[in-house]
């Protein structure tokens, strides 16, 4: 019983680990935003930081970009996700996309963004493929495609990463809403595949993926790494500018950064409310559409659009990665040749030393954050069964909350707070900051399989005389090996991809593969970007391969577990 009392507190500890830094960071943003920053000898409360912020010439455009890219990327991602599932769920094409989901998801945002940049720049693979025979270009045309003023390239990069996320979330939801029988009934009543799905299944699926959609909106509005790679430079997005001000040697600039962080937060909150309003409007229109009994709404065309978009998303990310790989081993590569004239390992050998060092740092941070996250998650889930806790709607909301608060809104405050408290930035704070983002993903990945485990196995084991701990360690966890390892891989990938927490909480002194890769964006050394982008991707994907293979090896003589 002594042990029972100790795990009873794990859910609370988990919430603290997840939300503590977020709340502290937000509070730490408020004081400097109103001029109070003792660390820089500024103790006078004032609204001057906001006045300075509003006077900054790039402000209106930065605000507009945050809103437009956020709404555009989220609506497009949701639309593509819905079209793919509505038109193709249960088909062979869909299963191909489903198999690609996990690897696509684990590709770090920065690597995916670089890959897409390599494809679509005027000197990228797409232009090369059609030059000079079609376009007549002997030289890259002088048009700004990547880092365009309107942030459209950034939207493309975001959509490519968010569609797999929303697809995965929708797939989990589909299992709970009995989608197949609804589709059959709709078809029997004469509804087209897409129309029938939209009317019968979508409302229920959307109710389940609403929070993930909010996460996508908040992330798209405030991303830093994708914006540095694909977003406009002069002026940059609000979030990028916040990071610039934060890394300014002049501490006074932090006041303006804090003010901008609060504005970013308000923008996201306002946009979430607006989106919620949009949901209601769509719901009303949808209800009218159902009443009208329309059987088909260009279903075939929509199916083709959905498939086309799905293929574009998959090939965009995958070809982008291949392009990173080719650049990393390219010798001389003249325009408009599709492949380099020569191959060389020079880029790899030049960067190998630093790749190794930063790679070790990356892995250590990911290992620690993931280990803590998996332990806390298992503790929470086990406490749930032992003490009959149930996770309320509010609990699920708390889980998504750290993903919905823009990183640029609380991480600067966290750094300022650490500075004011005289805390050293370094390994432990970075691990704790990563934990904020790793925990929700690990929990979301592990909770369903953990709860779906047949508790009668536990009853049997208890009836055979095993204690609660015996049941957990000797029966439940071995049987759940595969999902536990998948959760580890998910946590690992989430940690490897983190840019801003590493940069800000690490004080720039803890370089990882991701911070190094993003730092290369300004330089434009494609070979170096190829090397780091690929190394980053490998670090994120290898655990997934291990999570797939290990259960097959360990349970190779156990058909009940290796077939699953």
């Amino acid at each position, binding site marked *: 019983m002594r042990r029972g009392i100790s795990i009873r507190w794990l859910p609370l500890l988990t919430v603290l680990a997840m939300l503590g830094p977020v709340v502290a960071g937000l509070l730490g943003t408020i004081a400097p935003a109103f001029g109070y920053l003792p660390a820089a000898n500024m103790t006078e409360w004032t609204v001057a930081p906001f006045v300075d912020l509003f006077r900054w010439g790039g402000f209106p455009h930065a605000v507009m970009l945050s809103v437009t890219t956020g709404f555009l990327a989220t609506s497009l991602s949701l639309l593509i996700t819905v079209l793919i599932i509505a038109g193709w769920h249960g088909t062979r094409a869909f299963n191909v996309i489903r198999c690609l989901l996990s690897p696509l998801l684990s590709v770090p945002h920065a690597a995916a963004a670089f890959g897409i940049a390599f494809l679509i720049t005027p000197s990228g693979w797409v232009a090369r493929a059609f030059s000079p025979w079609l376009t007549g270009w002997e030289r890259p045309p002088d048009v700004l495609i990547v880092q365009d003023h309107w942030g459209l390239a950034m939207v493309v990069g975001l959509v490519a990463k968010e569609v797999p996320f929303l697809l995965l979330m929708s797939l989990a939801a589909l299992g709970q809403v009995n989608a197949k029988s609804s589709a059959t009934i709709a078809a029997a009543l004469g509804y087209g595949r897409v129309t029938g799905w939209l009317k019968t299944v979508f409302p229920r699926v959307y109710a389940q993926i609403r929070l993930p959609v909010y996460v996508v909106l908040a992330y798209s509005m405030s991303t830093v790494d994708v914006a540095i790679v694909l977003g406009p430079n002069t002026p940059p997005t609000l979030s990028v500018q916040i990071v610039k001000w934060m890394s300014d040697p002049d501490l006074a600039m932090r006041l303006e950064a804090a003010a901008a962080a609060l504005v970013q937060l308000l923008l996201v909150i306002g946009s979430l409310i607006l989106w919620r309003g949009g949901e209601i409007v769509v719901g009303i229109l949808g209800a009218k559409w159902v009443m009208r009994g329309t059987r088909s709404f260009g279903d075939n065309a929509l199916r083709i659009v959905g498939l086309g978009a799905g293929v574009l998303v998959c090939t965009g990310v995958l070809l982008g990665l291949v392009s990173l790989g080719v650049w990393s081993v390219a010798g001389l590569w003249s325009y408009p040749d599709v492949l380099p004239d020569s191959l060389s390992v020079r880029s790899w050998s030049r960067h190998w030393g630093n790749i190794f060092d930063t790679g070790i740092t990356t892995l250590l941070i990911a290992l620690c954050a993931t280990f803590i996250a998996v332990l806390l998650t298992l503790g929470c889930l086990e406490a749930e069964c032992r003490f*009959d806790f149930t996770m309320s709607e509010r609990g699920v909301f708390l889980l998504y909350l750290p993903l919905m608060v823009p990183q640029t809104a609380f991480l600067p405050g966290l750094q300022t707070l650490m500075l004011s408290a005289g805390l050293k930035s370094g390994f432990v704070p970075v691990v704790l900051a990563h934990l904020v983002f790793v925990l929700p993903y690990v929990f979301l990945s592990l909770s369903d399989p953990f709860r779906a485990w*047949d*508790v*009668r*196995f536990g*009853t*049997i*084991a*208890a*009836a*055979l*005389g*095993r*204690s*609660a701990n*015996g049941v957990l360690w*000797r*029966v439940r966890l*071995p*049987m759940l*090996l595969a999902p536990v390892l998948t959760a580890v891989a998910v946590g690992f990938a989430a940690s490897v991809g983190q840019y801003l927490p590493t940069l800000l909480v690490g004080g720039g002194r803890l370089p990882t593969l991701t911070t190094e890769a993003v730092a290369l964006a300004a330089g434009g050394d494609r070979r170096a970007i190829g090397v780091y982008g690929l190394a980053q991707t490998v670090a994120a994907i290898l655990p997934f391969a291990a999570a797939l293979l290990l259960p097959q090896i360990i*349970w190779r*003589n*156990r*058909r*009940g*577990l290796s077939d699953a």
Partner: protein
Amino acid sequence: MSHELHLDNIRISKDGHELIAIDQMVAAGEVLSVMGPSGAGKSTLLNYIIGTLPSDFTATGAVLLNGADLCALPSNQRQVGILFQDDLLFPHMSVGQNLAFGLSADVRRADRPARIDQALTEIGLEGFADRDPETLSGGQKARVALMRMLLSEPRVLLLDEAFSRLDTERRDQIRTLVFDTARARQLPVIMVTHDQADADAAGGPVFYLTD
């Protein structure tokens, strides 16, 4: 050693609505059949006896085994064996490991392999110790599950629709095996079933639950 079980004025309710009221003696080697439509709370009674009643149920009454209340003990110290309609052999363990998991820890390490081999012989599965449970037939799995439970030396036997997944031929065979074993070991048995044939074969008292 023979055991006598007394379900002493047990009442279980949920949301203020009473599901079960039972007061019944089960003698050693006797089978009490509990019958009723699905949803009438048959399995809930077993949950109470074994100690896994969900917290949204409220229950009063005692489960007296030879006069001592089982409810005072945690599940794993009650020595109440249970069989479900699924065999629920642990898929990550071999057949032998499943039996070893059940075999009382009091049996010395050196004697355990021999005890397991002997147990396998008893159920006609000699030499199956290293097999993956998933490669066994339905009837074989049911026998392993029964033996796994018996090896833990239970004092009471609960059957939760234990025969409903077996085909007719196997069902008679396994049912006879279970009832004979219970009689030989003088175990009181409570069987939850919706199949009158089960109750007829058991030959003991029948308790009907109603909605």
